């Protein structure tokens, strides 16, 4: 029996669901490995309480704000999100008694709306054609107009990467003697900056690779390139490579993870896996770790897991999966 329970006999015992955030499994994907000697591992952040990595970030941001006296009891939290951060914040805020309002593009999957409402969040929709940039702009305007809100602002809040620096990366280092490359999705930059700094402290040669969505190709509603947005927490000089992945490729690889490795994960994870396998194929040996940001439940309505790619092509033009 012990040979199958190499690390811990169970996931641990916790006094509250918030305490159970993190401590996620690291699973080797033997079929995706391009060559002997190069191992690919998926860190399954889908195992967090609301099903995504953002549980770590939301907990870190709220607890940091509480410790620094930035939130009053019962104060309303306001945050722009493409979904996952809002859902995580909603769960944590409902436990802690903070009302929450999230600003989200209107073209995300229906499941995100349901999950937010389920955890008690009020939703304000921003125009989908402006992508996440539109949600950020709208939320900033709302916060400027009403000082009663507290906005964690995941894009500029150091508690975001710190959740990974102190949590995710430490868990990875506990399980592996050596991390040759770490591949993460580039959204707010928290995953890459936090994990990158901690992993490179342990081994400066660890490659830090960003997989990013081609949002800018799909988004029709920007007025000019001046409407671009770069999260303040991102330090590009920490990255070794930054590679974009089309929606189509992300979906192909999400289906591949399911078919070949039995992983039911969100579409961003397919994109990240694609880049992880490419990085792995360029190595002679080593461990490539990539982060699975969320599970697939909230994307079921998109048909990604059940329809052939040819049937999905048109919907992929405007879908928002990150």
């Amino acid at each position, binding site marked *: 029996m012990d040979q199958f329970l190499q690390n811990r006999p169970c996931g641990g015992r916790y006094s509250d669901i918030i305490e159970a955030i993190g401590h996620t499994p690291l699973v080797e994907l033997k079929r995706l490995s391009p060559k002997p000697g190069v191992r690919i591992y998926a860190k399954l952040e889908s195992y967090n309480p609301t099903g995504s990595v953002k549980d770590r970030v939301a907990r870190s941001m709220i607890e940091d704000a509480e410790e620094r006296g930035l939130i009053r009891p019962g104060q309303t939290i306001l945050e722009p999100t*493409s979904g996952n951060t809002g859902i995580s914040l909603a769960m944590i805020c409902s436990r802690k008694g903070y009302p929450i309002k999230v600003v989200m593009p209107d073209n995300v999957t229906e499941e995100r709306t349901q999950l937010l409402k389920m955890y008690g969040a009020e939703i304000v929709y921003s125009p989908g054609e402006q992508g996440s940039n539109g*949600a950020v702009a709208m939320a900033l305007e709302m916060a400027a107009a009403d000082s009663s809100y507290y906005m964690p602002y995941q894009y500029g809040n150091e508690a975001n990467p710190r959740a990974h620096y102190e949590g995710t990366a430490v868990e990875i280092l506990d399980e592996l003697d050596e991390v040759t490359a770490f591949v993460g999705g580039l959204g707010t930059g928290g995953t890459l900056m936090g994990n990158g700094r901690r992993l490179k402290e342990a081994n400066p040669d660890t490659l830090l690779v960003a997989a990013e969505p081609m949002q800018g190709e799909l*988004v*029709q509603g920007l007025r*000019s390139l001046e409407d671009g*947005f*770069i999260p303040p927490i991102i330090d*590009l000089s920490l990255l070794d490579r*930054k590679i974009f992945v089309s929606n189509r490729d992300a979906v192909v690889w999400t289906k591949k993870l399911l078919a070949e490795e039995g992983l039911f994960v969100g579409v961003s994870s397919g994109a990240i896996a694609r880049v992880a396998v490419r990085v792995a194929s360029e190595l002679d040996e080593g461990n490539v770790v990539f982060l699975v940001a969320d599970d697939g439940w909230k994307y079921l309505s998109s048909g990604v897991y059940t329809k052939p790619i040819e049937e999905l092509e048109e919907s992929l033009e405007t879908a928002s999966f990150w």
Partner: protein
Amino acid sequence: MSTVKIPPVLRSSTGGEKEVPADGSNVGEVLRQLATAHPDTERQLFQEDGSLNRYVNVYLNDEDVRVLDGLDTPVKESDTLVILPAMAGG
């Protein structure tokens, strides 16, 4: 000639074209040639000192050139440059 893919937000400056050819041995030369051929793109692509607008991402095939050699990144004839606005995630 390499190919430059134009994002929706910039197409009104290239006469509606989604892809334009451009010459140059590195990313900087290709983008400057694009700006010469389509002057309305210049102030969106470049800052006053000639550096790339910080809200613009340029990819050599699918890799961000800022993480390679920036505007000095070499470009081959078969390469495609993709211009995209920087977008938030999360």
